[in-house]
């Protein structure tokens, strides 16, 4: 590689970098913009108690024992109350796959971080609904 060849390489590299300065950046301006999550995203779960039969296959399938079941707590004839421990959940999807009664689904909601550890353990009232408090930050409201 002669001196002139090196100089040509150098100018080519400078041209690439210079052009990159003026392009729109790839990052999203979180939290005002966020990337689109497909509907297959394995986010937090939602437990549909109408179709649940309390078979506990999801509890058996979980690799990290993040699901706890209370079979005495019934709202409909055969269901149960599930508690999801999101401090242990690895979002693997085995519980959803093992449910034959279409009572457990993943949702694309992934921003579930909380300030206290106890808020991350979703009890039966929190896991059955998608509502949550909006986040206040510097005068803006999100979610």
């Amino acid at each position: 590689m002669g001196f002139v060849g090196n100089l040509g390489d150098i100018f080519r590299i400078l041209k690439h970098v210079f052009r990159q300065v003026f392009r729109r950046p790839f990052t999203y301006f979180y939290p005002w913009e966020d990337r689109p999550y497909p509907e297959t995203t394995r986010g937090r779960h939602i437990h549909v108690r109408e179709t649940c039969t309390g078979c506990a296959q999801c509890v058996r399938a979980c690799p990290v024992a993040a699901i706890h079941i209370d079979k005495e707590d019934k709202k409909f004839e055969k269901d149960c109350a599930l508690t999801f421990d999101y401090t242990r959940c690895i979002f693997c999807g085995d519980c959803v796959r093992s449910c034959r009664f279409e009572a457990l689904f993943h949702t694309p909601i992934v921003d579930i971080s909380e300030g206290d550890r106890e808020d991350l353990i979703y009890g039966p009232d929190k896991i059955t609904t998608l509502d949550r408090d909006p986040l206040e930050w510097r005068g803006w409201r999100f979610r």
Partner: protein
Amino acid sequence: MVGSLGGYDMQFDFFTWFGGLWDWIYGILLWFWAIIKWLGIWILDIIDGIWILASIPENFMFLFRAIIMPGLIFLLLALIFTIWFTRKIWARIQDRRGPTHLGKYGGYQLFADAIKLMGKEIIIPDKAKAWLYRILPSLLLVIVLIPFAFIPWDPYWNIMGPPGAAYGDLSVSLVLVFALLTAVPVFSLLIGWVTGSKYSLIGGFRAANNQFAAEIPMVISSVGPAMLAGSLSLFSIVAAQTSIWYIVLLPINFATFMVASIASVGTFPFDAPVADSEIIFGWRTELSGIYFTVIYFAEFAEQMLYSALMVSLFLGGFNGLPFLPGIVNFIIKWLVVYFIFTVVTSSFYRLRQDQIVHLCWKYLIPLSILNVVLVMFAMAYLPWLVPLVVGG
């Protein structure tokens, strides 16, 4: 007489002595009061003298120019702007945005960073020489900020006026600027050594090696414009570029000066003393809190200084569009040069220390010396060149 001893009167009258005691004490008090009065009058005389000196219009304007504009306050604000500008450009090169949340477009991020860093705990390593460790970083920042006094921002609104005027530019200000800049890597070596950690020591040695390699081509490259202008004073070099900018005549010199100054600052691609992936942060590893802030600012101040030097030596300084004040011309050119500086530094991989020395000695020095020789022959044998470049 009773009890004489060798002819002296030993009789002691106690009451006479007691009566004169008060006068004696009063005399001592008067003596103290005279000293205090003398001290007060002396201090008032000094303040009076300073006031008389400062109220002479030229002196007052000098102080105003040196401290406010384009002096210390302007410089600190420009430094904060520079660091913001650099972070935004680095971010855009890396396909992201840089600081955005504080202030519109992230302008206040620097203040937040400075306040946070000043509040951090200052950890002094066990084996460090504590007092040197505390003084050296601040001394480094002072040495980097002093050469800004000699940069010709504007023909009138400048800290140093034209040579020969009151507060005129030194006739060798270019040499003084380089003398101060050469002290910077020595401080890096010292900081690396007094820290007492192996990584810092390696970084310090590499900084000294960098100086050995890079300062020489930089100084030789600056001889070209000095010869064309016929003087070593920065103000005269800029004043001589009224008809033509020296970059048109000496483009290769500009390139060698730029590369040598990047190597001298110690930023990528020549940042082996501070290599992020090999020696954690080189000689800056153990600095924390206020010392880190000072070093961080010193690095960007050095980059600003080299850009300003490039503008004054090659790009004509305050000469430019005639309807704009000189300092605005200077700042526009300075922004362009700083932008090019940042883009060039972010495009190349980090060279190994021996490769830096190899590059500087084998390629930059011959090119710079060639430039100097060309300028010498051109000045001697091309008669139409001299009035063109010396300027009016």
